[in-house]
């Protein structure tokens, strides 16, 4: 199994490499010249053509694409992500300030999206076609359809503006995290609840479920002892996909609640055409996705006894 792990790791690294090369190429070939911009900022309207050319030369903007790429990779390896065109500060600094916020947001949302779907899905499966099952199904569909910015706005309207229970802005104190976590976690929760419910339904009609009944279990017993262990792998796979997608939710939530996280940084850099920042953030995203998927694959491989024990196949 270790061989499988190395293969996956190598694949992941390749993916990151290719994706970063692509994004670099795209952004570097974008219209709009960073040099012009920097010259203007340095010298105001008196920026001369020579100044622009000098900056271009200094920054190596005239070198062929692949050389620029390797320079950039080298810098990243050294921990230098460049300077933001918008603020002039090193991007690493911005990251250091903003990353904790976004990570906390994702983790909270992740916890919600991990446990709630299990509760909801199992409750629905126990009810099996009853009122609870059908209502949960409707709620899951609606929750997966509502835009997350609308959900956020609704929560703010209800709990901040009308009821004054929760603070709408600021990142201090646990209470100020509740609404953002719910907003970020709602969509994945609804999607995962449907997946859990449908998977449990399918698992209950498999032959080993019948064996479970033959053992003398009732429906609840079969659901818990026979079906649930088989839920782990499909659940984790979908959870991994949804967790990676949560970054988009984080971007929106940071906008709704006016938080300064990586998501907000990304949007600002897009609006401002701040290419070095966009480059660095996109790279971070790519690394994040690839490694979340890698982690999920690894865990699934560990959990599934058929893969884990393949070397013990005996007669």
């Amino acid at each position, binding site marked *: 199994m270790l061989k499988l792990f190395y293969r996956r790791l190598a694949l992941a690294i390749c993916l990151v490499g290719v994706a970063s090369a692509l994004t670099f190429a795209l952004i570097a070939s974008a219209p709009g010249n960073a040099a012009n911009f920097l010259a203007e900022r340095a010298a105001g309207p008196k920026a001369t053509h020579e100044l622009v050319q000098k900056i271009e030369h200094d920054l190596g903007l005239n070198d062929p694409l692949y050389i620029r790429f390797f320079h950039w990779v080298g810098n990243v390896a050294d921990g230098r992500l460049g300077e933001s065109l918008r603020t002039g500060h090193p991007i690493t600094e911005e990251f250091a300030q903003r990353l904790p916020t976004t990570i906390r947001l994702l983790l909270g949302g992740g916890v919600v999206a991990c446990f709630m779907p299990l509760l909801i899905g199992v409750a629905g499966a126990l009810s099996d076609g009853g009122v609870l099952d059908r209502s949960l199904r409707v709620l899951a569909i609606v929750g997966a359809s509502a835009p997350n910015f609308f959900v956020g706005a609704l929560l703010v309207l209800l709990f901040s503006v009308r009821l004054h229970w929760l603070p709408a802005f600021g990142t201090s104190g646990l209470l100020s995290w509740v609404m953002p976590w719910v907003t970020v976690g709602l969509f994945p929760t609804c999607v995962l609840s449907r997946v859990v419910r449908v998977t449990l339904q399918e698992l209950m009609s498999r032959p080993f479920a*019948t*064996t479970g009944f033959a053992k003398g279990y*009732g429906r609840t017993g079969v659901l818990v*002892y026979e079906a649930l*262990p088989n839920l782990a792998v499909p659940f984790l796979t979908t959870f991994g996909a949804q967790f990676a997608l949560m970054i988009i939710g984080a971007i929106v939530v940071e906008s709704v609640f006016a938080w300064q996280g990586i998501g907000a940084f990304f949007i600002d850099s897009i609006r401002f055409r701040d290419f070095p920042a966009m480059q660095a953030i996109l790279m971070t995203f790519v690394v994040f996705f690839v490694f979340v998927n890698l982690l999920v694959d690894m865990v699934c491989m560990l959990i599934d006894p058929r893969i884990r024990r393949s070397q013990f196949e005996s007669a």
Partner: protein
Amino acid sequence: MPATIEEPRSLPIYEVDRLTVDLYTDKRTIRAVDDCSFSLKPGETLAIVGESGSGKTVMTLGPLGLLPEGIAVHLRGKALTARGDLLAVSGRHRAAVRGNDFGVVFQDPLSALNPMRRIGPQLAEQARRFAGLSAVAAKTDAISNLRRVGIADPEDRYWRYPHEFSGGMRQRAMIALALASRPKILLADEPTTALDATVQAQILALLKQIQAEDGLAIVLITHDIGVVAGMADRVAVMYAGRIVEEGAVADVLKTPTHPYTQGLLSSIPDLDTPIGGRLTEIPGAPPDLSSLEAGCRFAPRCFAVTPPCALARPSLAPLSSVTSTTPTHKVACFVMQSNCQEPIR
């Protein structure tokens, strides 16, 4: 042997009375079992024979509530055990009876065993729940159970997953699982169909041995007459949801009376069949179980059919014939009963 000791043993341990099972899907309704009855005594093996779709599995597993989810089922009749009528009790009670008194062996052990659970703990769990053993005793019991069914190195195998066993081993493990709760009745649904011939013989021998040791009653579903001949005491032949012939194995196999049984047995090639000769077949095809019609269901394909056959359903009644030695040999056929005919062979 004195009659008083014989008597308790001749009382049936499981009795199905006038069972009718309808299956409802959103597309059609099927009568899988149509007014069937049978009984099972302790220590005896009843074989149920029939082609696919004849209702053997539904009749055997249906009363226990073991039909797959997703199909709406309506059962009528009675299924009597020492703990009550399975069709009349609550789901919970039925589950308790399933666990305590019945053990089930399914056809394909690879799909019937949970791929994410180890074998040993499942056996121990059954022993704990139904045989009243403590956790430690249950584990020991499970290991000896594995050893008993012929699995080598049971201490190691206890912690293994199903996919780590070979086909024959898996079926043995499933038998161990069925026996773990110390049942009185074993239901085996084509337990050897998925195995190759040598392993088949071993499994059947194992079942026979366990039956002799524990006094188990066994219901054996099969479509293989050879298995019937080798294992069973009595046999019931099913066609289109009805039992058409029933009796001691020796009687039914030597003197098959119902035209369907005769057709079944004569279609088996034996050493006397000339090479290159044609195999006898039963003409026609099995009927559509979703339509309810009067009359004998085998009539369209029967070589002995007469006009009354299509009007009323023949009921299972003993042969009043000098060639049949016991009144337990029953046939559901107007022609064969009334004529007391010698079966055509």
